[in-house]
């Protein structure tokens, strides 16, 4: 089951017992939505393609005491950024936004359907919480957390994720990051979501090369989960993201280091500063834009040798 359908299905079970749980879809479909429509019609609002109104509506419902979840395609978060900022962040009306198909997840639909910069603009919002789960267990934990502790949340859901993390990953979201592999302190690779699969492949290659490496899944992007201990043992850190580098995931790591007064060498790997107008699926675009496993590996080798 996808992250999206897992979230919606798990939430359905909660909603059956709590009439205040409301799910809004801006005309986005999902197989898990069908049960909501059939069995909880009073708790499902189908607003049509009207992201600006839908966020304002959600804010009003939240003010009235409802626990509101809004599901749309990640790219539309930019369209209603003003409403999220104004009606939810500024007015302190907590809602949970299920932002599906982040980054190049909708390739080959083209750059209008892709979000190569949503981490940067969404984390600029005051008092927002941002998560990018890498597996199903974490999605389930986020359902529980978002229900029990209402906040303005932006949950970045992957259309596809690397299934190895259902085994390797954790359901523990308490710290904002989890160590996936710990095989030394020569280098720390930090990634999240879909890119974690590539990070794991690169990690394995580096271990085969004889390097001592640790791999971290930093799924929480705001508030910044980095503490003074997070990278204390590493001299070099590599961040791997499926975003442009302007204010994205790597920037969060840099801010975390700076704010904890840690000086480390950091290599940020991400998408180039451009919109990709080219046919091809997600992996094709990643491989052709400096984020193939081999090109990441090569960049890290050069970084280690500096």
């Amino acid at each position, binding site marked *: 089951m996808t992250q999206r359908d897992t979230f919606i299905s798990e939430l359905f079970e909660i909603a059956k017992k709590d009439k205040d749980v409301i799910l809004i879809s801006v005309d986005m479909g999902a197989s898990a939505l069908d049960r909501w429509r059939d069995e909880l019609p009073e708790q499902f609002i189908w607003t049509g393609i009207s992201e600006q109104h839908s966020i*304002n509506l959600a804010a009003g419902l939240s003010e009235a005491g409802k626990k509101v979840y809004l599901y749309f395609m990640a790219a539309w978060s930019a369209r209603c950024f003003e409403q999220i900022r*104004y*009606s939810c962040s500024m007015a302190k009306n907590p809602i949970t936004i299920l932002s599906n198909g982040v980054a190049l997840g909708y390739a080959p639909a083209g750059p209008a359907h892709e979000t190569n910069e949503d981490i940067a603009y969404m984390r600029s919002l005051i008092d927002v919480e941002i998560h990018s789960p890498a597996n199903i267990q974490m999605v389930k934990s986020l359902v529980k957390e978002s229900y029990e502790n209402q906040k303005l949340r932006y949950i970045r859901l992957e259309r596809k994720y690397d299934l190895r993390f259902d085994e390797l990953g954790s359901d523990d979201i308490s710290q904002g990051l989890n160590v996936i592999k710990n095989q030394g302190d020569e280098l720390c690779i930090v990634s999240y979501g879909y890119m974690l699969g590539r990070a794991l492949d690169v990690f394995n290659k580096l271990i085969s090369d004889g390097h001592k490496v640790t791999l971290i899944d930093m799924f929480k992007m705001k508030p910044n989960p980095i503490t003074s201990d997070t990278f204390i043992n590493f001299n070099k850190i590599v961040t791997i993201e499926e975003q442009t580098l302007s204010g994205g995931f790597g920037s969060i790591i840099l801010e975390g280091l700076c704010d904890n007064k840690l000086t480390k060498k950091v290599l940020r790997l991400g998408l180039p500063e451009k919109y990709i107008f080219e046919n091809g699926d997600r992996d094709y675009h990643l491989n052709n834009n400096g984020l193939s496993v081999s090109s990441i590996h090569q960049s890290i080798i050069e970084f280690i040798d500096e």
Partner: protein
Amino acid sequence: MDNKQLETIAKSVRKTIFEFKTRDGIGHLHSSLSPVDILVSLFYDESTNFNHETDMVMFGKAHGSPSIYPILADLNYFPKDELEKYCRPGGILRLHSDSSIPGCHFVGGSLGNGIGFASGLAYANRNKNIYIIMGDAELYEGSVWESLMFINHHNLTNLKIIVDRNGLGTIGETETMLKLNPLDEKFKSFVGETKVIDGHNYDDLRSVFSSQSPQVVIANTTKGKGVSYMEGKWKYHTIVPKDKDLIKQGMEELS
């Protein structure tokens, strides 16, 4: 309360607005004077359905929302001396009203969003009556029309939409900028029963506020109402009189 008494209250409200706006010269005095009679009708005319203790009135055009401050002070939502601290450090009354102010229900200052927020409140509280005052130039925001479709589809008749139709944007007339007319036809098509009234006439206001319908009230108003040199003059949108003689004249006309 008869019309004469309501008009007296309105004059006093306008005078108070004029006083606190001209004290420091901050805000949108012009836009705050046009919706005064709408508010006075709602809050003081016992014949209307509005009950300030159970219903909610909010502004889409929050730059005009300071018009409600003298009324809320009069009804003891906050001390009257707060009016003297309008927009000053330590005071609670801001240029745009927000939910930190007793009697105000939404953060103000971004047009086109209040109506969607109000629709959420109305959807969740079907037994609560919500009144939203929107500016006519606010209607250019596309989000408004998204919300109107939702309000109609879900039959949110507990949400009363009042358009403060003063006919002016920031730098000129709406019909010159981008025509809104026939505005009543647009609202009829999007929402339902709509009535155009004189927004300064208490009989007209009473007729639309004493029954459930119409759901949409287009209240024709005059921006800067009560101060002759400001009335209908678009240049006053962001200009608060600073000249002593003009302030004196305004005070005299509102006394």
